């Protein structure tokens, strides 16, 4: 059981709007950088950066962040953690960091990402940009830029499939099979 929530055009439009919102809220692109959370967030951060460049004609730095070492569920996860690289080649201190993720759910990944960024330096601000907000927060965390709000049930999962990973761009809602 799966249902398409966004197609390629929807995703493109959402990312274009979010790029405009980022520039508007920050009054330009000065001191701005994008940090994508591994993995989906990394591709979205690159797309947002190229959208921002088209609008404002400026390159803004893009990094990737792996949050495995900051997660709070090492003992309760079923799968072995896969550690991906954190590549942030710029000094984060005094920069405005926009964290980019594909789906905002419990907020725990974002909590971990904020801790990870803080260990790299002292940014002047951290903002959050997500393609999909599916609700069910377990922490007081809210996104600054949202592609689409999608009310979901806890028994459902939201999957963001991107061209960079060999899919067609789309967001789908899946019903999770009952676990035995």
């Amino acid at each position: 059981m799966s249902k398409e929530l966004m197609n390629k055009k929807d995703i493109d439009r959402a990312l274009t709007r979010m790029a405009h919102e980022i520039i508007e809220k920050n009054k330009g692109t000065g001191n701005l950088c994008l940090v994508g959370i591994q993995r989906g967030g990394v591709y979205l951060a690159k797309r947002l950066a190229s959208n921002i460049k088209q609008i404002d004609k400026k390159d803004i730095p893009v990094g990737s962040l792996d949050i495995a070492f900051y997660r709070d569920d090492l003992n309760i996860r079923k799968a072995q953690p896969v550690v991906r690289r954190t590549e942030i080649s710029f000094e984060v201190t005094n920069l405005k960091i926009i964290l980019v993720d594909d789906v905002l759910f419990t907020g725990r990944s974002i909590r971990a990402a904020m801790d990870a960024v803080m260990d790299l330096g002292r940014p002047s601000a951290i903002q959050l940009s997500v393609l999909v907000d599916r609700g069910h927060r377990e922490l007081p965390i809210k996104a600054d830029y949202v592609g689409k709000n999608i009310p979901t049930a806890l028994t459902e999962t939201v999957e963001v499939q991107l061209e960079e990973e060999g899919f067609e761009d789309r967001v789908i809602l899946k019903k999770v099979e009952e676990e035995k």
Partner: protein
Amino acid sequence: MKNKDLLGIKELSAEEINLILDTAGGFRDVIGRDIKKVPALRGKTAVNLFFEPSTRTRTSFELAAKRLSMDVINFAIPMSSVVKGESLIDTALTVQALGADFIIIRHSSSGVPHLLSTKVKASIINAGDGTDEHPTQALLDAFTIKEKKGKIDGLEIAIVGDIAHSRVAKSNIYCLKKLGAKVRLIGPPTLIPEKIQELGVTVFHSMEEGLKDLDVLMMLRIQMERQGKGFFPSTDEYAKNWCLTTERLSLAKDDAIVMHPGPMNRGIEIVSEIADGPRSVILEQVTNGIAVRMAVMYLLAGVKR
């Protein structure tokens, strides 16, 4: 990872070894930062149980545990020649009752970590058991080679010296073979076990022949306590035949790297010129050791019990 323990490389698959090396890459970045610590294993406890003297391995494990935000206890053990099986298990159970999640053990008898792993729920990490294995040393060596050469598969790698008594050599043979390297052993016949070719290695009894076209040279420490026991006549004689000199190193490839697990006997198995020279990666091995041990503990903590 399949098991809760790291007892030896022999028990690991190539896939598991690569998972450890890839994970260590992430930790290598962490320990290069200003804040060299992550909260990954906050609240857990590691106990160093070293029945044999060791400074660098124990310190490396201690730092690795601390950089994962664990609490670390160094259990002081009075040096006794033989520890009876009974009291050894009691010691491990006591350490576990103190709340240890990891027991890092070094012991002069082979197989001790394996025995303990069946008796306690904590993860046992072998930090060297007799002449059996020293898995984290082999993993940090593999990590260093991969970092320097970009790969391990297909490389010509030699282990030089006292192979017979070396757990470092044994773990490295298992590890490098599993990762596809061509492994040579170089040393006097008295220090290379007879049937070792069965592990898929080539044996040389001459530096001049063995060093040709090598990508990596792993020098072993000559264990001074073996002197005068008939394995080799004297350290002078050993140095004359087996010491890595500049002249001998020139037989290997121009970009060959030189490794040593430490502590070195300068002038006996390796000359200072090479140990401190540009081809030496000996100090990188020490730094990488922390990253690899962090990766091992991190991955073992995620194993379902």
